[in-house]
């Protein structure tokens, strides 16, 4: 009996040993900093970049426009930028989803070595430096860049198309940077797709469109949802892509946050914007978790009903 208890105690001790490093690391250098960001968002900006330790809700007022005080005024510009960032993130999700979806089917039809190599080839660009991937699009899109030079020498246009510093450039850059995140979850759900259901639907006379809408789409929905979530989140806060490909034309929320911290030195307002992003991310993650859980329990119920 006491031997059993010794083993128990030893297990508890080794568990504590295994878990303490990550607990300390994430507690001190992740959760506390995020907490401080939230606290900062309620502090008054001081002179020359400092903060004044007094409760100051007007950073949020400046952003969302409720009764204002403390020298801050509602600036509708910021809410507009926030919506603009949402728009760009949504567009990035939709375009990368449309681009990746057929590719997932293409790869899932392959077999053996070819399939593994293809998965590897699609994953690899993710490990090329982010800046270099953006830099490549600078080379392609700028007035004297590859695309314009080609179009001019082929005689399609006589003066360079204006592609740099446009919404188009930012979207292309974001899609290019985040597309590896979209592919893998979609591929995983296509790979699990039960083709006998597709066959059955076709045998029963459903049109290809019906089969797609009623069978293939719902069965691959988890992958679509997963991919969309992990593309949307980094796209929402991104500031490197718009700062190089959007110039002063496209200002997203990430650019504003960067400026508040490194140039304007208004840390509380920067923290406010960051807290808003954090809040959106947590909401999305929570919705995603609830969504997958309810679809799991639904299919579990269905399974039980059938059995």
């Amino acid at each position: 009996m006491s031997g059993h208890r010794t083993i128990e105690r030893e297990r508890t001790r080794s568990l504590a040993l295994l878990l303490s490093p990550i607990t300390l690391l994430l507690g001190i250098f992740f959760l506390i900093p995020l907490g401080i960001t939230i606290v900062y968002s309620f502090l008054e900006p001081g002179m020359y970049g400092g903060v004044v330790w007094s409760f100051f809700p007007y950073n949020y007022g400046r952003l969302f426009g409720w009764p204002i005080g403390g020298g801050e005024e509602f600036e509708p510009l910021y809410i507009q930028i926030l919506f603009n960032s949402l728009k760009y993130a949504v567009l990035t999700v939709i375009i990368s989803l449309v681009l990746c979806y057929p590719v997932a089917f293409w790869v899932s039809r392959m077999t053996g070595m070819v399939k593994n190599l293809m998965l590897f080839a699609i994953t690899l660009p993710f490990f090329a430096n982010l800046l270099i991937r953006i830099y490549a699009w600078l080379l392609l899109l700028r007035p004297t860049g590859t695309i314009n030079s080609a179009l001019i020498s082929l005689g399609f246009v006589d003066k360079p198309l204006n592609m740099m510093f446009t919404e188009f450039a930012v979207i292309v850059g974001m899609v290019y940077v985040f597309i590896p995140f979209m592919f893998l979850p979609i591929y995983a759900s296509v790979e699990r797709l039960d083709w006998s259901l597709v066959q059955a639907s076709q045998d029963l006379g459903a049109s290809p469109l019906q089969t797609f809408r009623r069978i293939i789409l719902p069965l691959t929905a988890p992958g679509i949802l997963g991919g969309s979530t992990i593309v949307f989140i980094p796209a929402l806060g991104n500031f490197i892509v718009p700062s190089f490909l959007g110039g002063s034309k496209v200002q997203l929320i990430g650019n504003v946050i960067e400026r508040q911290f490194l140039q304007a030195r208004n840390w509380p307002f920067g923290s406010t914007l960051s807290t808003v992003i954090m809040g959106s991310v947590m909401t999305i993650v929570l919705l995603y978790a609830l969504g997958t859980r309810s679809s799991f329990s639904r299919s579990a119920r269905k399974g039980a009903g059938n059995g």
Partner: protein
Amino acid sequence: MAKWRNASVGAAALNVYGIFFLVFLYSPLVLIFVYSFNANPTNMAIWSGFTFDWYRTLFGMQPAASAFDAAFTESPDRIFQVVRNSLVVALSASFISTVIGTATAIATSRYQFFGKQLYQAVLLLPMIMPDIVLGIALLIFFVGAGLKLGLLTIVIGHCTFLSCYVYVVVTARLVSMDTTLEKASADLGAGPLTTFRRITLPLIMPGVVGGFLLAFIISLDDVVITYFIAGVDTQTLPLFILAMMRRGIRPQINALAVLLIAFSFVVASTGLYLRSKRN
């Protein structure tokens, strides 16, 4: 018959589409590679002969053509120092993260404890949180705590998300692993430490090393978080490239980009291979 023909037309279309997708992924990178050997100093889009000059100027083996170019690469010492900073950060951050991440993976996959689900959820957050949010949170924290921004703060910052990354990679390995040997070892009277050292660790080693290599590359290539917590005196290779890009597009950037991509791809391929390797 008609249906069969439709199917094969569809398959052909899918092939064409898939190849276009690969071209989309790789042509921008191939373009940099080709441009890095183009002798034309003013317009990269026009080929004017093959040269190694951009690689040579990068390492000070050849004087830069103009004062403007010289300002880019400054001196070879500068780039070597930047590379050294990056390697120091990437090696220490990925090593620490591999130890912490592996320990965490073992705890969550081999033990039952109160609040385990919450732990598992929180462990995913540092990877999900947008880089800019984590970057400024760490900046506020380090400045508030009076830590001088520099290599140490970069290493700490990288550890927060890399540990979680290694945790995910190693967990995948542990979950798919056969636990019979571990049980047999325990039944034969081996202590937990012996079982871990003699059985578990050798079996999960490919996952651990794979996780280490992938963490190493992610750290080496990190831009956004490093950007906020590096401070004014410390530069890593990505920050150096960022500064170069802000000054303008120059052929030297192509050469540096090719070298960095080649290095990243070699290390990441090894990591991906080890991660996917079966027992």
